[in-house]
Every structure is written in C-alpha cells, then in structure tokens.
C-alpha cells in the first residue's frame, strides 16, 4: 500500500505538469472507454431493433 502510494506520488503527482497532463489524458481515456462500454451494452440489449441492424437489407450499392 505504502509502496504503491509512493510510486504513484513520485511518478504522477510530484510534478504538476505531469499531474495535470495525466488528469487530462485519464479523463479522455475514461471517456472513450466508458462510451465504448455503454454502447456495447446498448447494442446487445437492443439487438436487431436498431437501424444499423436492419440497414443491410435496404442499401443498394456499397457507397451509400
């Protein structure tokens, strides 16, 4: 616990530039990850009901 906290402090918190950058990067990564997780839950819950699930039946050419 203590060792881990120390390592965390020394590598991330010590320099403000590193600290702020890692907060921004962490927020970005979390945003992407959270969004991906929710979307995959949403798509599996609503399987077959959304437009992207039935779209293939109606598109004629590949570029539309």
């Amino acid at each position, binding site marked *: 616990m203590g060792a881990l906290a120390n390592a965390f402090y020394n590598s991330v918190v010590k320099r403000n530039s590193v600290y702020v950058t890692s907060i921004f990067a962490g927020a970005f990564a979390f945003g992407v990850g*959270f969004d991906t997780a*929710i979307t995959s839950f949403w798509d599996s819950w*609503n399987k077959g009901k959304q437009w992207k699930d*039935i779209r293939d039946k109606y598109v004629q050419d590949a570029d539309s």
Partner: protein
Amino acid sequence: MLSRLPAGALRNVGAVVGPRFSCSTSNARLVSRARFASTSSGSSASSAFESFINSRATLASVTLFTAGSIAWYTSLYGTLPFIGEVHANSAADEGLHPPHYPWSHSGWFDSFDHASVRRGYQVYREVCAACHSLDRIAWRNLVGVSHTVDEAKAMAEEVEYEDGPDDQGEMFQRPGKLSDYMPPPYANEEAARAGNGGALPPDLSLIVKARHGGPDYIFSLLTGYRDPPAGFEIREGMNYNPYFPGNAISMARVLFDGLVEYADGTPATTSQMAKDVVTFLNWAAEPEHDERKKSGLKAVILFSALTAISLYVKRFKWSVIKSRKIIYNPPADKSTH
C-alpha cells in the same frame, strides 16, 4: 456560540459580560470537562426553542399559514390532493381508459424497433396521409432511422413542391428534396374540415405526446371501433369508439386486415398495422428517444458514482473533526487573592 462552551470557560469574562455568568456553580468550575465537538449542549438554547414552540404567536402564524395554503391550493386547482373524490362522469365522457401495451420501446434501455418504424411509415403514407399532415417531419429525418439516403431522396422526388420566386418573380414547381417537409393532404384547415364533415384531422407529428395514454391510447383508438351499444344515439357521419372522449368520433375505422402489403413479409393485420403506425408516430413525436435513453443511462451511472465519491470524501475529511475531543483543564482555583 456562548452556549457551546463549558460554563467554567467563561469564568474570567463573567465580570465583563454580566452577573449571570459569575454565579456558575463552583464544582462545575473545578471538574474538567470533556465532550465531543459534534454533540450539542446548552440548556438555554433548548429552552428558547421550547418557549418559541409553545408561544401563541407561533400557533397563530402556523394556523394562518396552513389555512392560507389550503385556500390558495383549492383556488388554484379546485380540489385537495390525496382526498378521494366521486365523479358522476362515466367512461363515456372521458373515454375508456386504454390498457397498457408492452411496446418494444417502453423499457428503460429499449430503443425503438426501427423495422416497425419503417412499416409504420408505410402505413402512415398509404393510409393516414390521406387526411392527416405530419408537419414537423422532413424527408431527411427518415434517413438513418427507417430509410437509406437514396430511398428518402427518391420518395421526396415523387412529390412536387412549390418554390421560388425565380428571376421573373414567378413561383415554380420542383421535385422534393431531402430538406422538404412532409406534404400536407389539404391546402389549409378549412379545406381539411370541409373534406371531413367539419372535423379537423389533427397533425400527427406530436400526437403521441399530445394525448393522455400516448401510444396506448392511439393504438386502442385505431383498433377499438365497434357497434354502438343499444340506446347510444350517434349522429350521421360519426362513428362509435369507446376510447374517444364522448365516444363519437368523426374519423371512421381506417385499418382493416390486409390493407397494406409489407415488403418484409410481416402479415398486415389490423393490430400489426396499428402497432407499427403508433411506433412510427411515437418516433415522430420523440425523434431523440434512442439517444436520450442512452445518454440518460450514462448520466445516471456517472452522477451516482460522483455522489458516492463526494459522500465518501466528505466523511473522510470530517472524520477528524467529528471524532476529536475538546478537553479543558481549568487552572487551580486561586480564589484567595
């Protein structure tokens, strides 16, 4: 503030503040007192509170406040809440209460069934559009919901729209574009009334939001036509429908088994068409529905996590203050001087 300090603490300032404090008992002064900072003490505060609660002025003002709010509420809303009422109205006046149907989109996480929206558009176009407009929906709105871009463009081009003026100041006809809105069946309200025995077929864009019972009501209305019960007088040109308030509606039954032919092979029964068109109209009234539920899910998760974190941090930060003890050791009594 003063009441939160032990009596002995004020011994030295007693002479300055007044005689009340100088008469504190001598043993209390000698006993060292310890208590938690968060506990409340002070009998003077509680007795002040008691005399406030028991006072006539409080009683009078609370009574006045209560009577005032009841009067205000009844004048505003007519009745009091939570008190049962008896109505002489029958279901005939307000319309039969529609049952709740298990819509494919009614759950917290359920999106619209877009295949149903597509079939519902077909029912609207082939049946309802003869009388009902759909002002707020443009062709582009169908793209990515029920139709592809090419399909929507092709459908729009089949309709002639008036545009202009051109260089000569003339209005001209042109084929529809994606940005055009659904064409109305009648040029104006008067024409619509004239074509429907004086009754105006309402615009259907927001009809699901505009009626009590929403999709359940409209489904029940479309499928609920039957012969009037014995003794029910119905005017010429009106139709009996138990779900419509008043039970006599100008719109005749429009959906019959096999009226449309679905491209995806779904049997076009009356109830299937009603379900599809209501799903379509529900989408028209709430096009943001799918995205709203998805964002709502994210918001609930994030905000509950943030609430939990802030509660934890508050307890963590306050734990020191909440659990500390304040100890006061009075100096030895030097009353001999």
